[in-house]
């Protein structure tokens, strides 16, 4: 074989090897170009913007990520089921169905989910809203959340925040739920449970009587009923009366 032909064949083989890559590239380009039919691009004279793709295959309307009954996400601790019943003082304290109930509380170490730092610190979208949830009351006025027993932080007794709205989203009540305390109480037992990651104990704890939110609640109307054990988990039950 003469040298030039040999060289030609060699080049041809290299070329053949790269053909599938080129075809593949063209194929993908064609798909991208077809997709632009559904999007609007901008152009100025002969200088056209690179083709764009559609925003996602099929965007769908999605409820707020707060709408969930299991609000733990990545947080660990002693299991706590939170059952809140909403009643209507404008209707002889009958159960209020269809009310929207937001709750939020701190994790076992006393931290809330929120943006830390300042400015443009980024957060992972899958875990950032831990221990916050939203449910709508059923025919019995009940909402139920699966969570972990909240820890505590300096200056406050253990508590859960609650915001109740009517079905239209108008605020009816912003309040907090307090916990029973004292020796043998769930608060004392859980905060001693180092095996479950509760490391603070009760040293420095602010009791309900000294808490700037609960200290005026001399009748204990804001204190929930808490039953259960560290091993089996606890259940909190509380009724909130609103004027709907």
């Amino acid at each position: 074989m003469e040298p030039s032909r040999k060289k030609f064949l060699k080049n041809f083989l290299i070329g053949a090897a790269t053909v599938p890559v080129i075809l593949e590239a063209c194929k993908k380009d064609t798909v991208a170009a077809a997709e632009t039919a559904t999007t609007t691009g901008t152009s100025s004279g002969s200088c056209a913007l690179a083709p764009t793709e559609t925003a996602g295959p099929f965007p769908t309307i999605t409820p707020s990520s707060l709408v969930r009954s299991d609000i733990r996400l990545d947080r660990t601790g002693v299991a706590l089921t939170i059952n809140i019943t909403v009643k209507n003082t404008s209707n002889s304290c009958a159960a209020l169905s269809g009310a929207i109930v937001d709750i939020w509380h701190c994790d076992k170490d006393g931290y809330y989910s929120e943006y830390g730092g300042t400015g443009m610190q980024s957060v992972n979208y899958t875990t950032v809203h831990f221990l916050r949830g939203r449910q709508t009351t059923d025919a019995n006025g009940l909402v139920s959340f699966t969570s972990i027993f909240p820890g505590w932080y300096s200056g406050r007794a253990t508590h859960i925040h609650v915001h109740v709205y009517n079905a239209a989203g108008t605020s009816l009540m912003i309040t907090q739920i307090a916990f029973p305390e004292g020796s043998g109480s769930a608060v004392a037992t859980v905060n001693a449970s180092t095996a479950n990651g509760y490391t603070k104990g009760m040293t420095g704890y602010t009791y309900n009587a000294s808490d700037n939110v609960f200290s005026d609640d001399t009748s204990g109307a804001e204190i929930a009923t808490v039953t259960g054990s560290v091993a089996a988990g606890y259940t909190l039950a509380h009724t909130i009366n609103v004027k709907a």
Partner: protein
Amino acid sequence: MPNNIIRLCYRKIIDASSAQVWDKYVFDSSYAEFLLQAQLYNQEKKYTLFSELLLHVPNAKKLHFLVSAAVVGYLQQLNDIFPDITDNLGRQFVPFKNFRFEMIESDVTKKANHRVAINFFSEPMTWHGSIGNYLLLSAAGEKENADGVLTHLVPLQPFLGIYSVKEEIL
């Protein structure tokens, strides 16, 4: 020159004039969430604008975070890829898991004044250099194949920035 590891930031503004379906859903959902959550900071109903709440109510800045809960479901629909930003072949490819939502302005009486931004932060990428107005990027840790490392060319453009940079440790 050693390669640098960079993370891109894309700040996507969404308001009443946004035309894409996804953007419209984010607009509607974030406004509904704002109306709910703003009541916590506006119990006497003294204010109508988000900027007024920021100015007068301690902690109202938490609304950036609180309202962001409304957009998480839409972020999931993006399958961890930046929206809008394409390489010069027209393909979306920038991987992300992190974001930060911002309220720019809103108004409890007028939805048309609602304006938000979603900042998308990319996963780390290797920046091999720049060609003209384009950044030559590959996924950080991308293994070489017979052709070398596969890359993307991304044009510099408004609202696309480099969030962070560090030298690649080889």
